[in-house]
């Protein structure tokens, strides 16, 4: 196992001491500081409002030269998030920059929940619905939030 870079220690410590508003970061396994879990509140004025979404985050060996690997553990009805929770977001792929941090990435994901991007979809059927019948899309998304994301909160 390689030595943990100072940056990862500093960043995770910072996330726990001074958390991003509406997010709770935890290190489930003290032996593996590259693996984090995040509880993210759904953004206001969106069908995800009121939900708390679980994410897992892994910092690969090449981090920060490569982006962190993040996925939703809670099912989300969203054109840019697939069944496995994988997220289609430019900063997690081609547009990653080592000057970004876990913090910036989490905020981008929260923002993506509130403002879906149906023109660059991961799931085309949800994207179609989002574009053509937004009310219906919001309704289903709200349903999913209640069904999956609200239960997590009670636990």
């Amino acid at each position: 196992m390689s030595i943990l870079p100072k940056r990862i220690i500093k960043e995770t410590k910072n996330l726990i001491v001074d958390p991003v508003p509406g997010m709770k970061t935890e290190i489930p396994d003290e032996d593996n500081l590259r693996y984090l879990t995040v509880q993210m509140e759904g953004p206001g004025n969106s069908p995800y409002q009121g939900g708390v979404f679980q994410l897992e985050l892994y910092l690969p060996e090449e981090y920060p030269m490569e982006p962190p690997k993040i996925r939703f553990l809670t099912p989300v009805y969203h054109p840019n998030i697939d069944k496995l929770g994988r997220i289609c977001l430019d900063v997690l792929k081609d547009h990653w920059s080592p000057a970004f941090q876990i913090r910036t990435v989490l905020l981008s994901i929260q923002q993506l929940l509130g403002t879906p991007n149906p023109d660059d979809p991961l799931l085309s059927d949800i994207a179609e619905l989002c574009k053509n019948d937004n009310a219906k899309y919001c309704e289903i998304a709200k349903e999913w939030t209640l069904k999956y994301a609200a239960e997590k909160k009670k636990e």
Partner: protein
Amino acid sequence: MGNTTSGYDESGNLSANSYQSSNSSRRSSVTTENNEYNNINKNSPSKNNTSTINSSTARRARAQTLGMTTNGSGNTGKQRRASSVVSSLLNAGMKGPSFSRSLEFSNSNTNEMNKRKSTRDRQLIKENHYKNLVVKFDECVDGGYLAPYGVHDDETKLDYDDNVVRQLIIDRKLQPFYLPLEDYEEDELSDEDLLKILNSTLLHQPYADTLEKFENLPGVNGLTTENLNNSDNIDNYIDSSLSKNEKKIQKSLIFTSRLYKRKNLWQQKENERFLDAKAGGLGCSMVPNKNLLLDLYRNGDECPICFLYYPKNFNVSRCCQQPICSECFVQIKRKDPHYKNNHDDNNNINNIDQSEDTSEALVSECSCCPYCATPDFGVTYEPPVMIKRSGLNTEVLPSNYQRTENIYSDSSNISKSVNTRPRTSSLPVNHESVVTSDMIRPVWETNLLKAKLRLKKRFAKANTIHMNNRLISTEEQNKIKKLEDEMLQKAIQLSLSENNK
């Protein structure tokens, strides 16, 4: 102790005075290496041309025999179609060199010899690269070094051109690799404490014993240094049950793994030499003194990418003037050749549809500034003023460094006086003082071409198989015949029904 390094590197024995000459000779050795490389490149296409012709005539002959057997019944239309397909395929083959074929057909001994020699050359180049990544205390530039401390860990990924970077640092065009400080609270740390921390820092981050990817590899662990040095004995350790290609991969893995281990040992020796010199032993004149260290690290700052503390003379991005340490700068590079607008993660070069020659669509996008995303990332570096320089390319030995008065209060004045122009705007990529990511990795172009060629080769191969199947398969022929009969019948039916009207 100073002689301990003589076994692996000539520069270990150099005195401080002979740096100039050693550098120039190093440079000249690079150029000869490059020339050799170019020659190899020049030779190979011609070799391939002749052999592709050989292979294509052979293929043509084979295709003709195939055409005879499958179309023996005398269907001239089909024959014409088949041969035109074959000829277009051959044309494609002529355009894109098909290396594997050419090797198959021109199975001469000289070719084998050349190949083996170039493997050894490649190994030697790689070995020299790793040697240049060893941090040596007596290659000191303004209190920093010519090789990275290893902040970003995986040494096997430091694929920048070490000769270029070393020269840039000596020429004061790039920040030297300074030893990083992990935490630094300027007010809380006394001079003594700061010096204590600096003195306890070794030249390189402690190594992981083995990297995950090298685990359980034969022919590495438990070997003597002598055995590790000898790459001829690698063959003895290779699993004989593997296929030819797998063997090749394993061989190169063992070689790299050994090199990693050897670099580790080299660095350990350098660390020992460093400690020895610090205690007043050989080369002590190249150890930075108290004054130099305090001047440097009292003005430290954090690199925004690795979060570590370095002396303030950072590299600065040419576009938005943000600081970046050399350790991070050498990590930033072009993406590997890939397709543009590649959405799907799995859609990489290795598992794409091979029915079409898409090699020309491969791109290797230039690296962008991590801060403002401007393409063609480049930095400028402002070295310390003349009187504050020490080490290589100066008169001042790091151990004789004098603290100049008023360094803190007048530092802004000093820097203004050397600054020919204030950096308020961005610099163009071709500005003479800009060091770009491409400059320290000049091979990116060759790599892109290689990737394109590989893809072309694979496409040609896939096409050959595809076409062969089409020519041979009688089932397919029957299908076509059946279809034609059906169409004929339909046509007759149609004309009959029209006649009936």
